[in-house]
């Protein structure tokens, strides 16, 4: 079995050279003929009645083409729980509520027009704390639900409850029990490219959205539902991605600004671009879901976990996006990180007048893992067991079925934990030096798709032309992870050509088959598997063609030679070598017989085969094209939040050594070891990029980042005061790639996009505790919190 030529190698990103020459076209750079620019007027209050909107001055401004308020468009409801309208008509429920929108010939004019719109408000009492909002006397954020039925409480009717086993009994049986309360706050995804789209209708009211969404087909679904409510039922929608400047979860829902662009385009009959500036991106973009966890765990005398019991409260903000579904991912670490037989998890989402949240890299897993891994250390201490040892005792193993019914196939967790221990010199150095500490945390995440919609399918089409070029039409999207390179490696390997022969299209619904979405770290696994199926088909077509054509090509060549040189004697060849497709193969652009790979006459370029197959001159010409739609045999979560929703799971461990300055409270990371079970690395250099980037974001999550919200208002809407780390904030990251392989992944690969982030913050928190004996349970772990805790300890 020959070595892989491309898979597993660090093939460079040559395919994306436009990004280094300034030629890549992002939504910021995209212009459509006649395009107008849209801007949004946001609410002035966190909770208020809209008494009156006066748009007269705005409408008169030269260059303005449309001004819309909630009065001008249908009351259609959108969002996960249909709890908001596109433009707010009677009530505003948060500072970022969209009250009006303008389309004009330049962004400056649009902005000027927005400032000329006068809105009269009548303030209403507001609530900014989910615990306050749960109380009987709290003001209601929503008076009615989507169907107009009156609401009595701010608690959302969502079914996030999981129960397996008997917690009461397990608690009685436990030798040691630990109880902790932890909390995480809002953080911004900080994509360098801000949100934006262009909406464009054709004459027949079919829509094209130039849009950065990762969920191109889900997007169509939501817009289709919206269309049905606004008199455009049956119209076609096409979603096309430009080059996307990062996603990190921001592009999984259909956001209000996208519906606004659609309405402005409808009104003006022109393409309309809405592009967020950075301040808007901080104020108006839904961030990561905050959560408060009350978590309790118990273990027996040998350190085996007997139960895990957790109740979470999520500040849902004023409306509902994917933040409210994060519990469906939180259940994964809650029930399945480490072996634990009895589990109870309940998450309550509560409306408040704060900003609402969407997805962010990890999608609830970082928050929940912070709770679980804080508790693990807490319990290890109660039990008098070393935290690393405690995790090894309870580690997941291949063949496990977790309480949530996840089937663990490949599992490199043991190797991750032990490697982290080694690299940190855990046994030798931990707790030995004053002010220094070590901590670790692990993760489990979906890595083989994630059935969150009824189909978890991924389609791909592969076309090989007579020049030996391969067109791959991918149904996924590209946010910059390196998918074009990885998929071209897989296709090149599977077909027997080279990566530079591959040309890919991503993110265009007019061309693509269907895909559930580039989320849940699923792309390489899903697209890779689909590609293997499609390439096998295409390869068979090529080889069938070769079987038919090689004798003709070779003999034709001999005929021509004979004509030129009558002395020429046709060699006596064994045409049996090329008589069956199973006896043929393709490698490095050449078709050849397996029994004689360097045959002088039978080793022929793929391009030549296809050329001869197409230009036959007499009926029966052929092209080579194949498709595949891969939907793995996984399950959706049932009502009890159980189901094996992925084909395989990623594991990993992050270990951190810190030094804490007890005078300033500052935490310095001396070493961060990030070990990940990736099945198999498709492209080591690209893989490292995911590990570094995710770990770095995790460090920000643990130590410096927070959106400061005061009475519903974002107080730090810019990079100046939102503490995303710079290149000067060095974190020595040591990545470790663990490759146990995976029987279901393409070439054994599993997903890795999100895992790098998940355990970072709890590893830091655990290290800080080891260093100074105080546990910070509220992210981010700032110097102020450390100093306060140290003072209180005294």
């Amino acid at each position, binding site marked *: 079995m020959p070595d892989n030529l491309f898979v597993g190698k660090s093939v460079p990103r040559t395919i994306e050279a436009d990004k280094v020459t300034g030629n890549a076209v992002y939504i910021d750079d995209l212009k459509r003929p006649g395009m107008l620019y849209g801007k949004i007027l946001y609410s002035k209050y966190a909770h208020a009645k809209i008494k009156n909107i006066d748009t007269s001055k705005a409408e008169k401004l030269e260059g303005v083409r449309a001004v819309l308020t909630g009065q001008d468009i249908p009351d259609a409801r959108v969002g996960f729980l249909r709890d908001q309208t596109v433009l707010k008509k009677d009530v505003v429920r948060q500072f970022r509520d969209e009250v009006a929108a303008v389309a004009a010939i330049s962004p400056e004019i649009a902005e000027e027009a927005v400032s000329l719109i006068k809105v009269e408000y009548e303030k209403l009492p507001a609530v900014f704390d989910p615990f306050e909002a749960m109380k009987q006397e709290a003001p209601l954020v929503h008076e009615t639900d989507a169907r107009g039925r009156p609401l009595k409480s701010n608690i959302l009717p969502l079914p996030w409850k999981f129960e397996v086993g008997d917690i009461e009994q397990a608690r009685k049986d436990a030798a040691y029990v630990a109880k902790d309360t932890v909390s995480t706050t809002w953080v911004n995804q900080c994509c360098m490219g801000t949100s934006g789209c262009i909406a464009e209708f054709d004459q027949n009211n079919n829509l094209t959205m130039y849009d950065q969404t990762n969920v191109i087909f889900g997007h169509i679904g939501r817009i289709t539902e919206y269309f049905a409510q606004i008199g455009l039922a049956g119209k076609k929608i096409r979603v096309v991605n430009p080059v996307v400047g990062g996603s990190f979860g921001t592009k999984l829902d259909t956001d209000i600004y996208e519906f606004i662009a659609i309405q402005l385009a409808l009104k003006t009959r022109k393409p309309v671009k809405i592009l967020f500036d950075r301040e808007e991106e901080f104020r108006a973009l839904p961030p990561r879901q905050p959560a408060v966890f009350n978590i309790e765990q118990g273990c027996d005398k040998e350190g085996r976990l007997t139960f895990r019991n957790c109740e979470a409260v999520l500040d849902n903000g004023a409306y509902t996006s994917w933040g409210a579904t994060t519990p469906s991912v939180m259940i994964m670490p809650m029930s399945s990180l480490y072996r634990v037989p009895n589990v109870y998890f309940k998450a309550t989402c509560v409306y408040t007048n704060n900003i609402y949240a969407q997805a962010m890299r990890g999608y609830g897993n970082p928050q929940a893992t912070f709770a679980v891994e804080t508790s693990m250390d807490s319990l290890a201490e109660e039990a008098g067991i070393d935290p690393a040892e405690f995790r090894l005792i309870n580690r997941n193993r291949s063949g496990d079925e977790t309480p949530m019914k996840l089937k663990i196939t490949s599992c490199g967790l043991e190797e991750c934990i032990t490697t982290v221990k080694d690299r940190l010199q855990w046994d030798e150095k931990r707790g030995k030096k004053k002010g220094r500490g070590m901590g670790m945390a692990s993760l489990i995440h979906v890595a083989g798709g994630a059935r969150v919609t009824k189909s978890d399918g991924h389609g791909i089409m592969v076309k090989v032309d007579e020049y030996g070029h391969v067109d791959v039409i991918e149904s996924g999207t590209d946010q910059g992870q390196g998918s074009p390179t990885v998929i071209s490696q897989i296709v090149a390997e599977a077909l027997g050509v080279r990566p530079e022969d591959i040309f890919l299209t991503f993110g265009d619904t007019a061309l693509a088959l269907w895909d559930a979405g580039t989320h849940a770290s699923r792309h390489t696994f899903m697209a890779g598997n689909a590609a293997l199926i499609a390439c096998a088909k295409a390869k068979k077509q090529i080889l069938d063609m070769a079987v038919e054509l090689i004798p003709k090509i070779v003999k034709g060549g001999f005929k021509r030679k004979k004509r030129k040189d009558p002395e020429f004697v046709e060699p006596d060849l064994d045409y049996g070598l090329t008589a069956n497709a199973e006896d043929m193969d393709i490698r490095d652009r050449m078709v050849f017989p397996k029994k004689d790979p360097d045959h002088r006459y039978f080793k022929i370029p793929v391009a030549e085969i296809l050329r001869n197959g197409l230009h036959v001159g007499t009926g029966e010409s052929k092209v080579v094209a194949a498709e595949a739609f891969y939907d793995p045999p996984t399950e959706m979560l049932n009502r009890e939040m159980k189901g094996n929703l992925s084909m395989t799971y990623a594991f990993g461990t992050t270990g951190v050594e810190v030094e804490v300055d007890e005078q300033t409270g500052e935490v310095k990371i001396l070493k961060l070891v990030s070990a990940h079970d990736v099945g198999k690395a498709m492209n080591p250099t690209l893989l490292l990029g995911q590990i570094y980037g995710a770990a770095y974001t995790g460090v920000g999550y643990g130590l410096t980042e927070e959106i400061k919200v005061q009475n519903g208002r974002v107080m730090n809407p810019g990079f100046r005061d939102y503490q995303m780390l*710079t290149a000067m904030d060095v974190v020595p990251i040591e990545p470790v790639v663990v490759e146990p392989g995976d029987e279901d992944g393409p070439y054994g690969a599993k997903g890795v996009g999100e895992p790098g982030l998940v355990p970072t913050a709890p590893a830091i928190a655990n290290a800080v505790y080891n260093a100074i004996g105080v546990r910070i349970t509220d992210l981010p772990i700032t110097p*102020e919190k450390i100093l306060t805790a140290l003072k209180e300890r005294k």
Partner: protein
Amino acid sequence: MIDYDYRKPGNLEEVFNLLREYGPKATLVAGGTDVMVKIKNTKKAPEILISLRGLKELCYIRKNGDYHIGALTTHTMLEKSDLVQEELTALYEGASRIGSVQIRNVATIGGNICNAAPSADTAGPLLVLDAQVLIEGPEGKRRVPITEFFTGTYKTVRKEDEVVTGLQIPVEMEQFGSAYWKQSRRKAMNLPIVGIAVSLRLDNKTISESRIALTVAAPTPIRAYKAEEFLAGKPMDDEVLAEAGRIAASEASPRDSIRGKEWYRRDMIAVFVPRMARLAAERR
């Protein structure tokens, strides 16, 4: 909509003429890293921006008896100057920690002090280096000690028709070692949570005299005179320095703000005055 005229005079005379013509409708601009940001954020602009970047003669760093620094000197120039790094180290540290390379390449020391943010990173160093601010107007030249230059948050003694042309630091400061600490959440692209500058002159192991300046600790950058008085004549030991830190912290009147809490700022003053004093002493 934002609209303004932009002029770039070639000499001071022209600047004064424009200032006289436009009065309060004009704003002086140098690097633009404060003025342009303010225009973008407030969506308000003056009628005319008068650029000082054509006044090349105000771009200098010299030691001519005293130290002379032109108002149009960029932070990058200060950062790259051996003279500043070796002999006016606090100023080197202040200038080199501002923003980013891109900011420092255009932002000027004159702009930094005229903007007069309580957080200005060159203010603390200039205060501990006894700088004098050279101001010129249609009526002539004057000089103001930096200790009297800041009158309030974003306010200085500079009159509307005047231009700050440079800074002068007395040659006596070459006997002082100095240091500046910018306490911030990350190592670049941050305003300080609190800034601590110290300069001191040693006589053997005793502190003959010192200067301590605090930024983001009051409405303007301030000197901690009581702490300085306390240190005079005292030995360089931990207890003495710690006490000086505590006194300096008590002289400050920091607030709670988005960047930090009042108590944290006081605590950091107490922590860093001793640390910067030690550093300054090493550099003597």
